[in-house]
């Protein structure tokens, strides 16, 4: 049984069908890259996985529990599946440390002292042990994104969804974030990432999913997908990157 199982997923925004029947399983410990053109539905797929988008047909289960729009169910789901966003979305009125401490304290009821210990530990893990008391606007984009990763890790999720987490960064800051993600992958974290970093996808991911027009168009290990694209759409997509 995959950790995240998706069957026949359909998603529409009004009359615009964005996902047209997705079947996909992500195993525990697996690192999956989702690639594709803008508008192909890759972010929507990711957002469906933790209930930020409702879907019209099909089924998503996480560890066997279905993803619905019921608020209690959603909160249980989100305790197990964390998400990191393109725009970091740190809480601007809180320090890096408080950003990390908030959810464990108010959601899990962790005592403040223990939450502080957890926060220090995860910030250390993303290389920002010294930035505990810095506010988001005092941090670079790369640092903010690493705090966002720490914030998600503090909830001890079983899987992390990364939605183009380096797309808003200056080129020289991309690497520090990817290094952190690579570390997580090596530690066995289950990761599903929408990304445009093809080199990273090739080096770190177990599988690559190419989405096209709302469907999984091609799927396979990176060596296959990148070296031997079978469909003209993927060939064209990869060709455009060079």
């Amino acid at each position, binding site marked *: 049984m995959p950790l995240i199982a998706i069957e026949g997923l359909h998603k529409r925004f009004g009359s615009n069908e964005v996902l047209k029947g997705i079947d996909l399983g992500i195993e525990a410990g697996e690192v999956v890259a989702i690639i594709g053109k803008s508008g192909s539905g890759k972010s929507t797929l990711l957002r469906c996985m*933790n209930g*930020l988008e409702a879907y019209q047909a099909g089924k998503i289960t996480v560890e066997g529990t279905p993803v619905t729009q019921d*608020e209690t169910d*959603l*909160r*249980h789901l*989100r*305790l197990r599946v*964390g*998400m990191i*966003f393109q*725009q970091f*979305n*740190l*809480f*601007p*009125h809180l*320090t890096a*440390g*408080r950003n990390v*401490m*908030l*959810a464990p304290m*108010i*959601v899990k009821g962790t005592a403040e002292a223990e939450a*502080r210990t957890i926060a220090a530990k995860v910030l250390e893990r993303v290389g920002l042990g010294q930035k505990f*008391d810095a*506010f988001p606007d005092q941090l670079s984009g790369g640092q903010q994104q690493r705090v*966002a990763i720490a*914030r*998600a890790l503090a*909830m001890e999720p079983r899987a992390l969804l990364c939605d183009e987490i380096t797309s808003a960064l200056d080129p020289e800051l991309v690497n520090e974030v990817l290094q952190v993600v690579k570390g997580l992958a090596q530690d066995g974290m289950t990761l599903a990432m929408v990304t445009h970093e093809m080199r990273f996808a090739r080096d770190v991911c177990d599988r690559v999913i190419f989405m096209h027009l709302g469907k999984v168009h091609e799927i396979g290990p990176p060596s296959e997908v990148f070296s031997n694209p079978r469909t003209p759409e993927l060939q064209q997509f990869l060709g455009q990157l060079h």
Partner: protein
Amino acid sequence: MAYQFDFVDVFKYTDVLAKGIAFTVTLIGVGGTLGIAVGIFGAWARGYSRMKWLDWTVGAYVELVRNTPFLIQLFFIFFGLPSLGVKLTELQAALIAMVFNLGAYSTEIIRAGIEAVPRGQLEAGASLAMSRLQVFKHVVLRPALQKIWPALTSQLVIVMFGSAVCSQIAVEELTFAANFIQSRNFRAFEVYFIATGLYLVLAILLRQGMRGLGNWLVFGRRSP
């Protein structure tokens, strides 16, 4: 024909003026605090509660207040409610009217602030398994108040000036005091000259107070 100012006759009534100031400060202090609390609740109800009936009720309340004069609201509460068996002192009626009035305006002001908080912030909170109420309390409220703090301050000053209307139901606030003094000594120009100055000072103090409160409560960068 030069007017001869004579303030001596006004200064005989310093105690009346002092009492007037005390009442005005009470009205704006208590009314302002509770009114903003109502506003936060109203903004939550309209934007966040997901309860249609509550959203609608608060919406109707806001429109009722914003589209009727404050004086009529005050008369309704002070003269109207006793007919329904609700007996209120002048001060109680005035405070209720102020909270009622400010609550509606601040509902809309605070709601504007809430809507200006980027959607991504809410999604980040939700994706950390926070409930909608937790997202509102811990993620949305402070950034929202930061955005609208100056507007809220202005509304408070307006409401403080509006408290002058409470003299009409014999609340002994500053305008009541001024009216009272000029009816005794007929020195209207001098009395209102001083009342104007006192309102000016009170308004400046209120703005400064709100700035301090904002820095402490809303903008405060307290490291943990």
